[in-house]
């Protein structure tokens, strides 16, 4: 396949960026999108240009590092992570636009790499449980009903990639935060911090400068792990419950 790539290039957070155009040839339809970018980067390096910076790690769709807006869609045309998107989703001769996540809470570090440490700080504010030290409890010491376990697991699938924020017209992190809150709040292990977790995580989310939620639903459409939109409603319910219960 022969492709024209229009890629966002930005030296550093202070310098304004711009789209740059590159041609790549001999791209196999079985390549992943990131392997296609590797090919471009090898050529750029040998030509003495700086390769395009992009985030990646596991390349098997489970780590949440890759983060590209492809032709306007977070993670591109398929419902998956960028690393699991293959070039067979494109046609020979296509022009592909590649941009970083766009949100004020995700400042660009370089080219296609953005700073997602705001997510880390949301997690730090409440994404934990009190873990008693000492001998390990028996596996069956704390029974968890199957529907609760399934609900927790569905939300635990969030890999924190940030596609929800990138897809949201408001740059809101409600789907991410709700996934983290719901995952722990439904489990008995998460009960001691149930109220403070949701209050603190939502407060941190606001402080980071993420936009407000208007229930547009783009987040749930872009999520590679299928975190459902009602997750946000479940978190709102937790938040309301907590505001009534906790006096601060």
């Amino acid at each position: 396949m022969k492709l024209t790539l229009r890629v966002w290039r930005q030296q550093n957070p202070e310098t304004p960026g711009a789209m740059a155009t590159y041609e790549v040839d001999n791209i196999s339809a079985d390549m992943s999108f990131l392997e296609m970018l590797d090919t471009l980067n090898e050529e750029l390096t040998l030509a003495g240009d700086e390769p395009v910076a992009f985030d990646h790690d596991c390349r098997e769709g489970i780590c949440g590092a890759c983060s590209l807006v492809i032709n306007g869609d977070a993670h591109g045309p398929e419902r998956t992570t960028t690393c699991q998107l293959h070039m067979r989703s494109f046609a020979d001769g296509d022009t592909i636009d590649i941009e970083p996540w766009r949100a004020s809470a995700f400042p660009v570090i370089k080219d296609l790499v953005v700073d997602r440490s705001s997510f880390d700080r949301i997690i730090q504010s409440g994404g934990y449980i009190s873990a008693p030290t000492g001998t390990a409890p028996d596996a069956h010491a704390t029974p968890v009903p199957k529907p609760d376990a399934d609900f927790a697991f569905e939300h635990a699938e969030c890999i924190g990639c940030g596609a929800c924020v990138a897809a949201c017209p408001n740059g809101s992190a409600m789907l991410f935060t709700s996934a983290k809150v719901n995952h722990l709040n439904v489990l008995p292990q998460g009960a001691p911090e149930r109220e403070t977790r949701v209050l603190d995580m939502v407060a941190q989310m606001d402080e980071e400068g993420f936009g407000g939620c208007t229930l547009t639903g783009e987040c749930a459409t872009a999520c590679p792990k299928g975190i459902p939109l009602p997750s946000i409603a479940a978190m709102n319910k937790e938040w309301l419950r907590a505001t009534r219960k906790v006096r601060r």
Partner: protein
Amino acid sequence: MTCGSVRFGGFRTACRDERDYYLERIYPAFGNLVPRDIASRAAKNVCDEGRGVGPGGQGVYLDFAEAIQRMGRKAVEAKYGNLFDMYQRITDEDPYTVPMRIYPAVHYTMGGLWVDYDLQTTIPGLFAIGEANFSDHGANRLGASALMQGLADGYFVLPSTINDYLARNPHTDTVDAAHPAVAEAVAETEDRINLLLSVDGDRTPDSFHREIGELMWEYCGMARTDDGLRKALARIPEIREEFWRRIKVPGTGEQFNQSLEKANRIVDYLELAELMCLDALHRAESCGGHFREESQTPDGEAERRDEEFSYAAAWEFTATGGAPVLHKEDLVFEYVHPTQRSYA
């Protein structure tokens, strides 16, 4: 494919020639349920013989046809649905109707930083947990236990050991930037970075990464020989010399630079690769996932030599390119004693 699905069974492995179900042929008693090191080695062998399938010939078939016929598609879906979906996404082939193509890959190496029982490294205050340390796994690592190590170290061991260190060292002053050790470390790092940037050669960091990876896979991978390991040990210094002569790292050291990061990791990789080959060479036995071709039973099974090698080898770093020093930590078995594995 993970070893989980391999363990559940219900499939057959084959290579190109008239669907040679080679595992069933070589291990008739165990068929396709041999352990992963045997299955992986056998897959590489048939591909090395030129009998692999798919583009490039690096693949063998994992055939579910019989399993689907016997168990029904629904039961297979319940067991492997997630995996089949992943496979279909990657290859654009439907594993319910055509056999999967698989090939072994390195994803774990059973070793790491030496730590004491508190999981502290030789640097006081520096703890290494999970896959980074050597503590839990022996010569083999069975399914999912890389997770086990992360969980056991982080959830059970460290909470009971790090507090002892913290109690003894309640407050440590921040080290002054003018401290000679800091100045030395900073100067050393800056020199290395400047050198990497100044070579301006004609090879990319990725090309070296690939070359060392292929060398390790071939000579220090699932099956090793004295001859092959010596070849690798002769080749690594040559690659190192070539690296410092031909590496090309665009950009500067002043800002985020992924090429520079990769190049730095390759410097480390060369050091680690050399040590792994040296360790593999000195251990002239087969054990667990480490198969030394000279040390096998008449039926091709890994032959242990416990009287000589029943120890963990801890290598002490002396200097880059310098000979590491071997410390042997004897393995003492009180209740269960290692025995020769047999699948005959």
